[in-house]
């Protein structure tokens, strides 16, 4: 069982590495989106390994089903060119800036994680969906209601903002 879990973890980590590099460096934005979707599905697999199946299904439902479609609409509506929006080579300065932005938090946090590993339990805690529902309607009722208000305001605001500008033209 232990070997199986490690193999699955390595497999998902490999998909995450390849997918995220594709999502960041690919010239065509549609290919970058494919890489992002691969990363999201691999993270859903990691949630399954962490014994959180409900979160894994929500990950697939919200990210793979919702947000990736939104980003795809954004790519279509911004009139992306077929040979890639990022096709010309980027300057050395911006690449250096990006490398610094990647390495500064990465190295510092990696040193902290490796030097001071937090106390952990060997196996993941088992929490049923029943407990999640009870938590959502019990102690965490206020965030649950607030997130619905935030979602409503964001959707209504997005429709209003986009619609008024289209109408003025």
């Amino acid at each position, binding site marked *: 069982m232990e070997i199986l879990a490690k193999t699955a973890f390595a497999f998902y980590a490999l998909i995450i590495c390849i997918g995220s590099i594709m999502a960041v460096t690919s010239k065509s934005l549609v290919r970058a989106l494919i890489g992002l979707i691969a990363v999201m599905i691999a993270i859903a697999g990691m949630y399954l390994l962490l014994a959180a199946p*409900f*979160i894994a299904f929500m990950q697939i439902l919200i990210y793979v089903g919702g947000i990736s479609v939104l980003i795809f609409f954004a790519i279509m509506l*911004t009139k992306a060119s077929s040979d890639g929006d990022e096709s010309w080579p980027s300057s050395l300065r911006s690449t250096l800036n990006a490398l610094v932005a990647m390495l500064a938090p990465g190295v510092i946090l990696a040193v902290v994680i490796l030097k001071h590993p937090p106390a952990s339990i060997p196996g993941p805690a088992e929490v049923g969906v029943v407990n999640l529902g009870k*938590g959502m309607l019990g102690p965490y009722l206020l965030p649950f209601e607030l*997130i619905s208000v935030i979602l409503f305001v964001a959707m209504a605001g997005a429709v209003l903002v986009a619609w008024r500008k289209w109408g003025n033209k």
Partner: protein
Amino acid sequence: MSALTLYQLVALFLLSIGFFGLVWRRTLVGMVISLELMINGAGLAIVAAAQLTPANAVMGQLGTLFVMGLAAAEATLILAIVLIVVKRFNTSQAEEISEMNG
């Protein structure tokens, strides 16, 4: 190396490569894709910390659920803003959007 450290290293990898993309990309939609990578890494870190430490697991899982809801709201608003910017400037390259008047 404990399992929690491995999960946190994966989340850290997502964070740093998301930072790289956010600075390196030139189109607005490419930046949004990098941002989503970072948010995914944050969710993974929260769930790993909730499941593999003695902390309250229900709180961690619900926290990730709320992060997903916030990410959906944020993606909707970013889509609307990108649409307006493209309509106004006829480009989604971040370099060329430098005009500022009301």
